[in-house]
């Protein structure tokens, strides 16, 4: 497991370093230098509007990262507490939370994102929030299932007998047991978010295609197959970033080292 973490952190570290270097102005159009191959001035060449591809990639990276962080935080901060509460309490509270969760599970995350971003416009935060919110359902279910099983362990029942306050039981005894398996699920949901955001940008509802997003870059250059590099860089960006989270997720589906 440790090797996996190092590889994932390595890739992410390189990308963060690379894209935080100073880069040109992504919106600087230069029609005299259209579709140039990689050169000293433009490490990744220029696009059909003569813009510096490296700058576009850098801005696209930070926007995608914002989406992943926003979506993951939203899912975890909403899903886990609700899952803990639903798992630990009985009756009405449990029913309300589970019905709301079922609602978000019925409507596919991508469709919800399409709807919301079309109305409020596609920005990293809006996409992150809606992908996070509709992705929280799985976190609620997984956390609730884990809480239900941990709750019946003797050490939790012993804490109840020791008059330990419920909040402390949830945070100190149940949550650590939940965190492990959830951490691994987080990996696969994060890589899913990256692809979803790229897809939203690609379909381009409520977005102007000059904004530097990896998805919009792919959408704009989809017909220029003769300039494969323009398609390669965003694809590589998405691939590497998704790999970072996919590596974290893999043990989730295959029991390793347990």
């Amino acid at each position: 497991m440790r090797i996996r973490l190092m590889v994932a952190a390595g890739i992410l570290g390189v990308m963060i370093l690379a894209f935080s270097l100073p880069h040109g102005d992504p919106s600087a159009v230069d029609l005299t230098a259209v579709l140039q191959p990689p050169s000293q001035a433009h490490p990744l060449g220029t696009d059909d509007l003569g813009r510096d591809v490296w700058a576009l990639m850098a801005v696209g990276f930070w926007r995608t990262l914002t989406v992943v962080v926003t979506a993951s935080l939203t899912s975890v901060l909403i899903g886990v507490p609700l899952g803990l509460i639903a798992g630990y309490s009985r009756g009405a509270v449990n029913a309300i939370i589970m019905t709301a969760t079922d609602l978000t599970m019925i409507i596919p995350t991508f469709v919800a994102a399409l709807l919301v971003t079309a109305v409020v416009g596609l920005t990293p935060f809006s996409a992150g929030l809606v992908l996070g919110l509709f992705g929280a359902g799985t976190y609620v279910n997984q956390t609730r299932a884990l809480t239900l099983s941990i709750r019946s362990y003797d050490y939790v029942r012993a804490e109840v007998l020791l008059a330990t306050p419920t909040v402390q039981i949830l945070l100190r005894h149940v949550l650590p047991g939940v965190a492990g398996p959830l951490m691994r699920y987080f990996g696969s949901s994060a890589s899913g978010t990256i692809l979803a955001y790229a897809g939203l940008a690609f379909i381009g509802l409520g977005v102007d295609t000059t904004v530097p997003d990896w998805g919009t870059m792919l959408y704009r250059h989809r017909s220029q197959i003769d300039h494969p590099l323009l398609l390669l860089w965003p694809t590589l960006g998405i691939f590497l970033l998704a790999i970072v989270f996919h590596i974290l997720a893999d043990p989730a589906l295959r029991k390793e080292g347990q």
Partner: protein
Amino acid sequence: MIMRWQKALVRQLELFFVSSVVIFAVARALPRTPMEVYLQDRGLPVTPESIEALERQWGLGGPIVVQYFRWIGRFCTGDWGTSIVTGEQISVAMAQRLPISLAIGLGGVALAALLAYPLGMKASLGSRGWDLGARLITLISQAVPSFLICTLVIDLFGVRLGWIPFFRLSGAALVIAPMLIVAFYSLGQLSRVVTAHAEELRTEPFVTAAVARGFELNDLLWRDGRRPVLYGLISTVIAKMAWVIGGTAIVEYVFAVPGMSYYLIKSISSRDYTVVQSYLMVLVLWMFGTRIILGGVLSWLDPRTR
């Protein structure tokens, strides 16, 4: 146990009712009401009187609760209203498009499930090769955006090799390529689930006891592992069912296949809310149906829940 299955049925009916209320409320809460959209698209002045007139014509007036019951009543009898933009009967439009989306989505997931069982089992029992293969498929399906693969497929087979005239297909041929891509994107996850359940079986007490009685482990897992592994596979498929209609949006968009999702995308961009509303209701009906049917299959699989 019939009682358990009926409890699930009632639960799903409740869910259906609650989601219809939510969908109705959401449609009403959107910034631009259908009437404004209709008037503005045609350049007509947006005056209270014209809104009043349209509301009466479309039967949208009156207290909110009455509107809701009128709407749900009509919905259940098949009258889903008319599209603001095109004016055609929504239920007719949906009826044409639903089979296409089902073929792509359901066909894709079903095909993936059929392939996932042997692939997942081989990955767990067979040689390293199968396992690496399954991991590679999962890796690609989680790291390469689907619209990219669609674009490459169209470019390679459509443009360069010219084998398939993608944008001039009709009938069954329309759905083959999108379905295969949907299958590919589901195969990774489903095969990993099968592998995980097969791995778990290895250490189950009843498996180790059978091996101690002389059964060979791999033969045992192939033969007796079917039910527990299928149980895990089908419960994951149920979770993917919501994705079937919605998740195929990109594939339908890139291949320009006139399915439900493509229709949804067009309706959203033209703010055709009555279509969006009906689309969401179809989703709810679809989830309602799959959970009941596949739920029944699950309880048949595991005798303990029967």
